[in-house]
Structures are given as structure tokens and as C-alpha cells.
């Protein structure tokens, strides 16, 4: 079942830094939100629609619900199988071109880089001969003997590609096709930051509280007037079969099992900002023929491994990539809410491989359902296979 979530207010996806009234007076927002945030928002939405007679805390006392979506300590049968940004065309011109549909947006693979004017695809090259001959040496991590080099001759410095790609363009990067026509969707098209100044209010008197001035930098999506597209989040949800022999539920069955209407309202992120969700059809996953002799795995979402940057040994042979394109790690934690009150606990903070990272392998590999040691139920470690 696919949900399209369209924010109607500015959003706050908090970092790990504490933000407490009267103590820490500044909070800024991450973007995009982490899988922790999105799963929390979706599960809370399911709980709020579960039974009109119950509030969320009461709904979580219903074992029929917790069997399906879990509780504070687990995820039940709830699985996030896709987590991306999405957009749909607003202008008549674009609508004429194709039927209304939500197009998913992905972080660019880290092995696609830019000089600012042109895109370059980086591919593995062996360093072994140079090392053997004593002409080059470097402190690559143990076991890595390949470096990444542009396919074409380079005349300028390369920089990471910052923005998002449409699903079609992503598939182009996964194949061995020409990438010259790929169009990057910039963050300015999707959102802008919105600094806000606020003041704490005393509960009893409703008067401003002295010393409780705070500042937040929020995210405003769909800020352009006359824009071509509206942007939001796309979340794919499945309920795991009760036993391995069971046939997975289709979208309609999943929606019925979760008592979720076709559309409705939800809250998302810090300060419980409003968003509208719609259940939309899930197109079949595109099959794209891969012509290369070897595989690479592209991470569409964050992943985390006990071993750090490299997949853990239980993913063998995926734990021995030739090399990888990985930008700096992201520390992700989160907040474990208590549905009975506004309190909760800090979750464990982990270092995560950023979305867009790419692992290169020698020969073909079989990709697992998810490549992560943590959070595969909630959208960590979603991978796509590519060829080189």
C-alpha cells in the first residue's frame, strides 16, 4: 500500500540536539526526515484511524492493532518497503502530458558526480598494479584495492550531486546508459527553510513565560507560487505474512487490515504539524535490464551496520565490496514517544551510511530485501541493484 503525504504546514524534523523549554532555545530541522520519524508518523496515523471511539493511547491497548503495527517496543507485522520524496504535476501543461500520478524522487547515487556543468559516472579501477609497482600508495581501509574514477576524461573538480532524481533518472544511473540528460531536482524546488521566533506560554495564565524565547528553523514545502509540482513524501507499507507460506496481502487487503481510509489528515514531525495523506495505487516495480558484468548496490535510504561503513559479515558476500562511494556518515537517533503522555526517551544514536551510497562488487550479486543491521522493518537499508 502506498501513501502520499502532502504537508500543509511548515515542518520540524529535529536533530539529536536537545530542545527544552527554558534551557535549549534553538532547534533546526533535518530534511528529509529519517525513517524513524516517518514510521512514527504513519503508525500514529494508523492508530488514530483504528477505532473512532478510542484515542491513540487506547488504540495501542488493542492487541489486534499492536499485532499489525507493533507498539513502543516493536513493529509487529508493520513493514516500510519504500520511503522517498514524491511529487505530482500541478500545471495543466504537465497534466496533459500524463495522467495524474505521484512520481517518486530519490537521492542521487554517490558515484554520480558533477563539475557543475556536466555529470560524471565513477567506476571502480584496480589500484593493485600501482601498489605492486610502488607508484601509488594510500590508506584505503583494509581489503579495499579499488578506487573510483570517472568514465570520461575529466577537466575540472568533481563535487557531490546535491538534490534528488526522478525514478526514471535513477534507473538510468543504475544501468550503463548515458547520464547526460539526467535532470537534478534542487532542494530549492522542494522546500525552503523558514526561521521562526516563538515564546513559551504559561499553562495557567496563558501569558508569555520570561526566558522562554526560542527559535526554530522549520521546513516549508511547496513554497513556490505558480509552481509546476507539489511535493510530499511517499511511504510504501506492507504487513508481513503471518507465516512464511502465506501469500502477502495486496494493497486493498493491507488498507482494510489497517482500517485506513482512502485519504485523511495526520500529523508529522515535531510540533505535530498537519499533513494530508492519500492512499495511491502502487505501480509494479520497474524491471530494468542490467547489462554490465558486475553489480553495485545503491542505498535509497539510510542504513547502519555494526561494522561501520561496510555491510556486516552475515550479509556475505556483500561484506566484501571492491570499493564504495560513501559520503560522511549521518548520526541518527530519535525519540521513543510514550503514547500516554508527551514524554519519552532518547533512542540509541547510530552512525548511518547516507542514502545514495553505493557498494561495488566484482561479478553479479543477489540483493537482499534490505541491507542494514537495524531498522529494516521501518525503511532502513532499502536497496536497488545497478550494473557496471
Amino acid at each position, binding site marked *: 500500500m502506498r501513501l502520499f503525504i502532502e504537508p500543509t504546514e511548515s515542518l520540524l524534523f529535529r536533530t539529536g540536539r*536537545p530542545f527544552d523549554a527554558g534551557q535549549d532555545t534553538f532547534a533546526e530541522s533535518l530534511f528529509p526526515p529519517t525513517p524513524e520519524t516517518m514510521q512514527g508518523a504513519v503508525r500514529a496515523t494508523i492508530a488514530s484511524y483504528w477505532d473512532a471511539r478510542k484515542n491513540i493511547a487506547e488504540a495501542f491497548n488493542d492487541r489486534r492493532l499492536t499485532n499489525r503495527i507493533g507498539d513502543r517496543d516493536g513493529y509487529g507485522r508493520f513493514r516500510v518497503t519504500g520511503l522517498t520524496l514524491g511529487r505530482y504535476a500541478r500545471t495543466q501543461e504537465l497534466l496533459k502530458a500524463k495522467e495524474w500520478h505521484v512520481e517518486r524522487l530519490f537521492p542521487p547515487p554517490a558515484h554520480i558526480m558533477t563539475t557543475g556543468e556536466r555529470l560524471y559516472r565513477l567506476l571502480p579501477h584496480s589500484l593493485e598494479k600501482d601498489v605492486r609497482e610502488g607508484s601509488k600508495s594510500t590508506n584505503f581501509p583494509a581489503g579495499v584495492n579499488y578506487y573510483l574514477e570517472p568514465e570520461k576524461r575529466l577537466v575540472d*573538480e568533481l563535487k557531490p550531486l546535491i538534490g534528488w532524481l526522478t525514478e526514471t533518472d535513477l534507473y538510468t544511473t543504475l544501468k550503463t546508459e548515458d547520464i547526460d540528460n539526467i535532470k537534478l531536482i534542487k532542494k530549492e524546488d522542494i522546500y525552503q527553510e523558514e526561521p521562526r521566533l516563538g515564546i513559551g506560554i504559561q499553562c495557567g495564565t496563558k501569558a508569555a513565560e520570561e526566558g522562554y524565547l526560542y527559535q526554530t528553523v522549520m521546513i516549508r514545502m511547496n513554497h513556490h507560487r505558480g509552481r509546476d509540482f507539489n511535493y510530499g513524501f511517499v511511504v510504501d507499507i506492507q504487513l508481513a505474512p503471518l507465516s512464511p507460506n502465506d501469500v502477502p496481502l495486496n494493497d486493498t487487503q493491507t488498507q482494510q487490515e489497517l482500517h485506513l481510509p482512502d485519504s485523511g489528515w495526520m500529523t508529522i514531525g515535531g510540533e505535530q504539524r498537519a499533513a494530508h495523506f492519500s492512499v495511491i495505487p502502487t505501480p509494479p516495480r520497474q524491471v530494468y535490464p542490467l547489462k554490465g558484468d558486475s553489480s553495485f548496490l545503491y542505498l535509497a535510504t539510510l542504513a547502519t551496520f555494526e561494522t*561501520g561503513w561496510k555491510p556486516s559479515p552475515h550479509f556475505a558476500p556483500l561484506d566484501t565490496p571492491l570499493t564504495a562511494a560513501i559520503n560522511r*556518515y549521518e548520526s541518527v537517533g530519535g525519540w521513543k514517544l510514550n503514547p500516554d503522555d508527551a514524554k519519552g526517551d532518547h533512542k540509541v544514536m547510530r552512525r548511518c551510511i547516507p542514502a545514495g551510497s553505493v557498494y561495488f562488487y566484482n561479478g553479479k550479486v543477489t540483493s537482499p530485501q534490505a541491507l542494514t543491521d537495524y531498522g529494516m522493518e521501518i525503511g532502513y537499508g532499502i536497496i536497488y541493484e545497478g550494473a557496471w
Partner: protein
Amino acid sequence: MTQQYMLLFSLGPVQAFIAQARKTRDLWLGSFLLSALMQASMQNVKDKLIFPSNPTIDGNIPDLPNKYIAIFSTLQEAEQAARQSEDHIVKTWKDICDDVWNKVFKDVRGIDAVTHRQWGAQINPINLFELYWVVVAGDDDNKYYKDWLKATQTLFDQRKHLRNFEQQLEIGEKSTISGQRAALRGVGEWRTDVQTFWYNVAKEQRSLRDISKDGTERLDAVDTVKRFAHLSDTLAQLVGHKNSQDFEAGFPSTSSIATASFIEQLLPASESPDVAPALSTWLRESSKLNEAMPATIPLLAVEAKKYRRGTEIIERDGDCYFPETYSARRLEKEFGFDNEHKAEREQLAKNGPDAVQKLLRATDAITSPVTRPTPYYAMIQMDGDKMGRLINGVGSRGEHQAISRALSDFSRKNVPHLVEKGYPGRLIYAGGDDVFALAPLGRDIVPDDTTTHSIKNVLNLVYQLQAEYHNVVEKEVVNTPAANSKDPSAKSRTELVTASTGIAIAHHYTSLSYVRRVSKEAEQLAKNSYGRNALVVTVLRRSGEQTRVGCHWHYDNLSADAQPIELFSSFYDLFVEDVLSPKCVHTLLEEAPTLVALEEGAQASEIRRVLTRQRNPMKEERLTDDELLLKAQHIVKLAQAMNAENQPDKEQDMSVELHAEGKRYGLVEVLGWLLVVLFLARKEQE
């Protein structure tokens, strides 16, 4: 042919390490630590170095780049040097951490095995630093030096495509600074326990400046090392001091930077008999805050010596000039006036603001009134453009070394001379082509001394910085024509010696990490959106409203008076001198959507009309009709020059709104600049 081996070694992460800061001193000490570690890394390769030319920190300005290049006779030597550099960094870092632990936690109640475990894991260099190095063999012959250097740089970039890291789990309450690591704690896990732990830590510290007294600042190990690194004898000795007591660790707060211009005027005014009584009262009341610190703004330190009460004045933090500092809540939270000192707190909450008001009224009333202090300051980040291309184009080892020396000279001589001697600013970092500094918005006293630069405001300051960068480095660059002579935009090597600058102007209470991010983004915008050799300024108003403007330093085919900084500076003077009313800018911005559609002559005519209406009738001789027309024409010419940089087919995408993202019409951009200049002239304060 002589086979030699080029080593390129780097220490990171720079931005992430420095960015986690709550106080300006955290920023500075973070930079200082990285420079100190780089100094340690180079101790065994001094005679092999190509870049930087000088591997030791000069004074208290962190000025070493985060990478070095050295040449060795054998591969083994080069690899051994790289590993020794790693070892030196690890050892120095551990020694500094040990010093900090012993000075900060030795006598603290509540230290537990948990604290030791957290500390050990978080300061572990493997978990913290990114040390990358590459060695490439090459021919020492000058003919091949360029290719050799390029091959080394290329392999280094390839090494950085894989930013490997170790996993590190952080459990429990997070640091209030980094938000990425758990705050150090004792045995208790709850927030109140962690707060109590830090309350106990704060109790053992001598200075109120080091850490919040009430436990609301809860730091992880790395934050702690950055906050207290000035207590480390290892660090002090590394930069030539006997021990940490000799290390001048004072660094001005954002408030002190914001008020520096006011203080510069207050110093001479302090001699006036009309100001002296109010000044005495204010000095007495502000001394109760126990905020005295050594002089931290070099220019003011020099000036203060000329006046009887100068030293007392500059020992006060800038906060002391704002009445809200004396609120009972802040006195309790930040200045240690707990309930045991309730009576003193209440007295100071009453007398403090009165003393400030009396001082400001007194300085308003003298013959040369002192401009009241502004709560806004500027954070500056400058970076050389296309350094990779410039360095990769060197024709010989000699040229490479000459450019290294020029970069070193620029950062060690020119930059401090401008930022700290010619202006009441303070450097956080100045290494090679990188400058990171804090500065007040404007300066109301321009010294008569012709040997000192007449830098009136932060725009003049950054303009001079980039100009001197160009002059110093260009001399050492061997010029070659543009690679592609058919491309009119192709540049020769000397034309590549340019710099881009980002400035964030922020309220002194705005989160420092946010201001740093915005200033860095401004620098990146100058490079990527404004096409380098450019300046971008972002004003972060306390209300949340932002204004962002940008331009090149120079436009071809414009007269000197119409060049951006020259033109904006002339408007700055007109606003400061009350020749023009601020209303002219707002009126023109309202008219901008219509104005952009008019032809050039009509635009100039309307701009002239608005400026004339908003000209102070008492000061018409300061801005005659002819001059006014010329100003209007300059505005239009500059706007056209900005428009010309946008491709004609993109014109429909250009915005008439100042606060729109993306490209705007040149006229909107220029009027936006006037709004920023108005802000610098402090005619538009909240």
C-alpha cells in the same frame, strides 16, 4: 630522471568538528585544536614540505591548513612519514584530552566507570578523525611536476570518495552542543541525573564563562575537550608557551563583537566629564556580573591604553550594554545569583538596566554623540576560488612553493592586519585562502592615521580582504593564457586568483551553529549561484525574516563609482549621515515589479525622483541634484550588469521579489543591497 614520492596528508572533518559550538570560544578553540594537531602531524616532515610553507601556528590565530604536501626520496619514507603523522595526531590529541580530564573532572563528584567508558569511546581518534593520505611516485623534473601534482590530488580525491568510519552507539541523553554523542554522566541515566552531574562539574570551574552553572549545558567528551582545551599544557606548549596559564584563551562573545564599534567610540567619550559619572555607575554595576576578562579584541586593546578607564571598559563583555542581561532570570541562570544571593540579584536587576540607560543617555548627549550599541554582528567566511585548478596548474615545484609562501603571508600578515588591526574584529581561523572571522557591522570612527586602512564597515573589510588575497597570491602565479582561447569566459591563471565571501549578519542571541551554517551557505552561494569572485550577505533578523543578496566584486564596463562595493559604500555614508531617509529603499522595493519592466532612462528617472523626495532638505549640499542623478544611473547600470550575467532565455524565470529563492532581476538585487546597507548603517534596527 629522479623518481620521488609526493605525500598528500589530510586531517578532517573540519567543518563538522568546528561547527558544533555554542560559544564563539568553542569555534575558535575547535579551529585551534585542528591547527595544533596539524602542527603535530608535520613535526617530522618540516624539511620535506611543499605546502604549507610554515608548519607552526603563529600566535593565537589558528592558521594551518588541514592538509600538507611533502616530497620524499623513497616510497617507504613517504609511507612512514604518513604513519608518523597519524601517530603524532593521535598522541597529541590523547595528551590534550588527558590534560582536560585532569583539570575538569579530577575533583568532580559523581564520576563513575560509566563516565570513563563514555570518555574513552568518544575521544577515541579512530571514532573521531578522518585521516586520509596518498603517495604518488613522480619525476622531480619541473616539466612533469604539474602532472605529478595533479595525479596526487586525483588519487587523494579518489581516496575521499570512500569515507569509511567505525560504528559508535550513543545511548541516553545527548549533548546539548553536538546532539550526536551522549552527554557525559555519572551512574544515573535520567536527564535530572545528567543535569546534576554537570551542575557538579560547573561548580568546580573557576570561570562563569566556561560552562552554565545550572547544569543546562551537558557536553559530550569532544565538546568538553573543545570547551576546556585552553587548560591543556600540551596545547599551550605546542604553541610555544610554558604552560596553559600563559595561553591567552579569551575570545570575544557575539555581544562583544556586536558592541565593538560602540566601545571604540565610548573609549574617547569616557574622558568627557558629562559621561564620566554615568560610566562609573555602569562600571560599578556591571562589575557585579563577575564577567571581567582580558582584552579580546586586539584593536580595542590598543585603543584602550590611551584612556584612563579604557582597560576597565574593555574588560566588560558586550552583554553588559544590554538592559535585558540584568533580568532576574538571567542573573540567576547565567551569572550565579542563586537564591542564596537573592537580595543582590534583585538589587542588580533594578540597578543594572538603570545604569545602562544612564550611560546611553550620557553618550547620546555629548557633542559627538556615540551611536548606540547594536545587537547584530557579522560572521565572515572567505575562501579562494578554484584553488584545486590553480594549484594543479603550477608549472614547477618552485612555483608551488612560492604560492604556498604567498598563501602563508596572506593569512599571517594581511588578514590579521585588516581584521584585527584595521578593524575591531577577531579571527577564528586564517589559513591559506580561508578566512573565518567575526566583526562588528560598521565602524563609526575612522582613524586619521593614513597607515591604517580606513575600513568603515564589514563590506569594506571583506572587499579589502579579497583584494589583498588577489594581490599577494597573483604575484607568485606564473601566468598562462586561458586553456580554451575560443571560449570568451575562459580565464588565464592569474585571473583564477579570486575569492568568494559569505557574510551572515545575526542577532547576538541567535544560535551560533546556525549563524555559522548560514555564513558557510552564503559563501557557497557566492561560488555556485553567483559564479565565484563574489560576495553574498544574509541578514538574519531576530524576527526570523531574512534578506539575502549577492554580487560580484567587480563588473566589466562599469565606472569605478558604479562598482558594487563603491556604490553601496556611498549609500552607507548617506544613510549614516542622515542625508537619505531609509524610506527611499522601501519605496523603491515596492515599485520594483513595475520598475524592472521600464527602459533604462525611465528607471533612472524614477529612482532619482524617489531619492530626491527622501533627501534630507537640510543636507542638500551633501548630495546635489547632479550627484543624485548620477547615483540613480549607477544603480541602473549595476542592475543591468547583473542582468547581463543571466542568460536571456532564463529571463522569464527571474523574480521581482527580493525574498524569492533563485535568480532575481538585477534591479531587485541592487535594491536588496541598499536594504542591507541600511541595516549596516543601523537605520533599520528592531
